[in-house]
């Protein structure tokens, strides 16, 4: 029965919608699509976010609780999972759509909050603190005194084009995607345009690679198309190397079919009949989503042999990467697909002439490809109208760190970073002071307060020596120590250096050691220490510049960036560490001395019990004391003392 219905819908969607000749659909078709989209539901629909952030916050249990609630209360209704809306602080995000009314969006609805929340909705006694906004359009009854979602600063300051679908439909349902207009751009493309024309359109749109470099996408495609070969490959780079970014995986979780559609169009444009999605390891939710989406797309005949009788063949496979940052780099990525150690190779030859198995290969970032169906359906002019003179369209960021609201955001090119920090993120959490904005992860740079007026724009940033990166944007406040942060990145990169070339392999190790030395606990015996530290720092700058100048691949060439950028913007913090042996953010373990104030200590023993190295001694109800030699400066005692008796210097 159920299967029949599914076949029915598939038949309808393929025949009446995808293969329909003109852009306008007959009214009956449109009506049926509206039903599939649940535009005007006849029963209450509860939408539960199911992106990774939501799942981590417990949304699966919330969804189960909602089902249970409907069952127990005997309410006929639906629970639908959706993709990611963006604001991570709101997870689990649950929306309720009552027939005839606007949709209501609630925040942090963990399983135990489902019942009070739904009680509130059904009995018109809204739990105000959990209610975020309403969403809807004409034809629905609006709720009083509840802001519209577009009015919230988090959303108002964004321009959600790529994210247009995210959060509004069930990413597990291909029919909803098609009902929202999906895959029609692909069909239009393969029916109406030649390979060259598609490349032209995309080139004309001004779309540039979203992985950071900003290479003109249409041009890259042309290189591959014009390399003579019997076979070509398209690779979607969903490696998402940046340790602080989740943007690519969020969008592909929230709207997997649009990514597939983008891959389909790009493959057609370059004449590839094989495409690979190279997915970061350890991403179970995105992997499951993609697998399921590819399966349904195959079932619908959208990928496979002779796609919807167009004569175009395309197979898409997922390759789960095996855990190496450097495999985000094109040649290393290709190497790992061929079953080799992921060590970058010399360029030229570039992948567009000789890539996977020696065939012309285009590698594109997830976000880049997500833009493609939009360009094909709305036209290059539409895309050019968004953004700045040199940078068209929008940019996704995985906004993280210490902002009040963080998560997945999309802004128009030209938006200032100030807007992002003060507006979208709504400033810093816990009332702390802003310190810097980090863009581009371990190969990126810091944007200081005075540079916040910069716009998101490839050229303007490049002039300032800032690279856009692939999507990581981290807000840093006074609780983060810059030296420690730079060390963190260097440690990461050092671990990830492939080891092929000397400057990067040895240089990252030395830079890390010198940085570690700066924050290490002072050794009272060593009177030369300051001089040594200083000499070390002198070498840092040489090593950094030689690494930039000579490393084989982008990893080594950009690895010194956080250090160089922090030295420019926050030199005094480094100097404090080196000369005064002080960490103003009280982060660096080695530079902190903890002691117990005898007047305040009540002898409650809590700190002694928690100290991981048993450095605290004392007798119950007498003041305790810390043995400095044993203390590793972890700060746990400081955190756990209820009487503020532990002090830090």
């Amino acid at each position: 029965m159920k299967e029949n219905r599914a076949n029915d819908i598939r038949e309808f969607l393929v025949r009446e919608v995808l293969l329909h000749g003109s852009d306008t659909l007959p009214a009956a078709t449109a009506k049926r699509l509206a039903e599939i989209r649940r535009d005007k539901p006849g029963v209450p629909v509860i939408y539960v976010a199911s992106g990774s952030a939501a799942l981590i916050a417990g949304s699966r249990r919330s969804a189960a609780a909602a089902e249970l609630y409907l069952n127990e209360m005997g309410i006929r209704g639906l629970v639908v999972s959706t993709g990611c809306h963006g604001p991570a602080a709101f997870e689990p995000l649950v929306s309720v759509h009552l027939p005839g009314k606007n949709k209501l969006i609630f925040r942090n609805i963990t399983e135990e909050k489902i019942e009070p929340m739904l009680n509130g909705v059904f009995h018109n006694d809204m739990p105000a603190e959990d209610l975020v906004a309403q969403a809807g359009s004409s034809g629905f009854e609006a709720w009083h005194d509840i802001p519209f979602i577009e009015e919230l600063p988090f959303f108002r300051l964004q321009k959600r084009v790529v994210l247009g679908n995210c959060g509004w439909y069930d990413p597990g349902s291909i029919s909803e995607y098609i009902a929202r207009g999906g895959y029609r751009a692909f069909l239009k493309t393969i029916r109406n345009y030649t390979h060259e024309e598609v490349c032209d359109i995309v080139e004309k749109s001004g779309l540039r690679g979203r992985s950071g470099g900003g290479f003109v996408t249409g041009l890259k495609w042309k290189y591959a198309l014009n390399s003579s070969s019997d076979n070509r490959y398209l690779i979607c780079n969903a490696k998402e190397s940046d340790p602080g970014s989740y943007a690519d995986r969020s969008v592909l979780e929230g709207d997997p079919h649009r990514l597939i559609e983008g891959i389909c169009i790009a493959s057609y444009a370059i004449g590839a009949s094989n495409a690979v999605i190279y997915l970061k390891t350890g991403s179970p939710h995105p992997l499951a989503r993609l697998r399921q989406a590819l399966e349904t797309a195959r079932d619908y005949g959208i990928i496979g042999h002779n796609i919807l009788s167009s004569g175009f063949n395309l197979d898409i496979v997922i390759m789960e990467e095996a855990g190496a940052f450097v495999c985000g780099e094109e040649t290393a990525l290709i190497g790992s697909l061929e079953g080799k150690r992921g060590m970058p190779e010399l360029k030229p030859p570039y992948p567009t002439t000789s890539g996977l198995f020696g065939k012309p290969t285009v590698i594109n970032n997830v976000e880049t490809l997500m833009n493609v169906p939009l360009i094909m359906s709305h036209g290059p002019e539409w895309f050019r109208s968004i953004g700045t003179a040199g940078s068209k369209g929008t940019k996704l960021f995985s906004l993280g760190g210490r902002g009040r609201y963080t998560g997945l955001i999309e802004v128009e090119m030209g938006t200032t970073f100030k807007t992002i920090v003060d507006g979208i993120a709504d400033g810093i959490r816990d009332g702390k002071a802003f310190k810097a904005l980090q863009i581009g992860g371990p190969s990126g740079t810091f944007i200081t307060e005075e540079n916040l007026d910069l716009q998101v724009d490839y050229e303007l940033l490049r002039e300032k020596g800032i690279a856009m990166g692939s999507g990581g944007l981290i807000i840093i406040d006074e609780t983060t120590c810059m030296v420690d942060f730079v060390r963190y990145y260097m440690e990461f990169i050092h671990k990830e250096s492939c080891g092929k070339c000397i400057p990067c392999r040895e240089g990252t190790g030395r830079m890390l050691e010198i940085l570690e030395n700066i924050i290490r606990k002072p050794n009272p015996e060593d009177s030369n220490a300051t001089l040594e530290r200083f000499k070390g720092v002198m070498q840092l700058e040489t090593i950094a510049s030689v690494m930039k100048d000579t490393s084989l691949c982008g990893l080594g060439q950009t690895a010194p960036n956080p250090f160089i950028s922090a030295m420019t913007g926050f030199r005094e913090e480094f100097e404090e560490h080196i000369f005064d042996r002080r960490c103003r953010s009280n982060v660096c373990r080695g530079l902190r001395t903890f002691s117990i104030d005898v007047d305040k200590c009540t002898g409650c023993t809590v700190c002694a019990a928690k100290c991981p190295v048993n450095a605290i001694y004392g007798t119950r109800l007498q003041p305790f004391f810390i043995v400095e030699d044993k203390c590793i400066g972890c700060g746990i005692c400081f955190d756990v003392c209820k009487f503020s008796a532990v002090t830090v210097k």
Partner: protein
Amino acid sequence: MSKIDEILSRYREGSHESLIPILQDVQEAEGYLSENAIVHIGSFLRMSTTKIFGLATFYDRFRFFPGGRVHIRICNGTSCFINGSAPVIAAVRETLGIEPGQTTRDGRFSYELTTCMGGCNEGPVLFCGDNYKTRVHPEDVPDMLAKLKSLSDLQ
């Protein structure tokens, strides 16, 4: 048919490009890559075991001895770092007395560091069993591990 043969039967003989997927499948099935498995894969793909081992040691996900019964993944992504993952990792390291990728002598625990798992706002994030633990504090770590230990005894 052994588990490994079953996995290999899904791939084409001699196809070097299947190496990483095969290793992933084998590790998934057996928990680690044994010497026996590597030899087996080598003769199936007609590839030198030297190359297979060399490749496997390049990637973080492969291991050559069994992991712990309780395997913990701790996010060491940037957001989690900013929100204090370093002390949490240090606490796990100190409590278990092992480095990431190692297994405790009693075979109970192993842990690894990952980059962003997508729960930045709730960081530091830790994943274990089927559960995410969010906003983990270093001082909670010993208790948490003790609880996991008694749970693993029950299994």
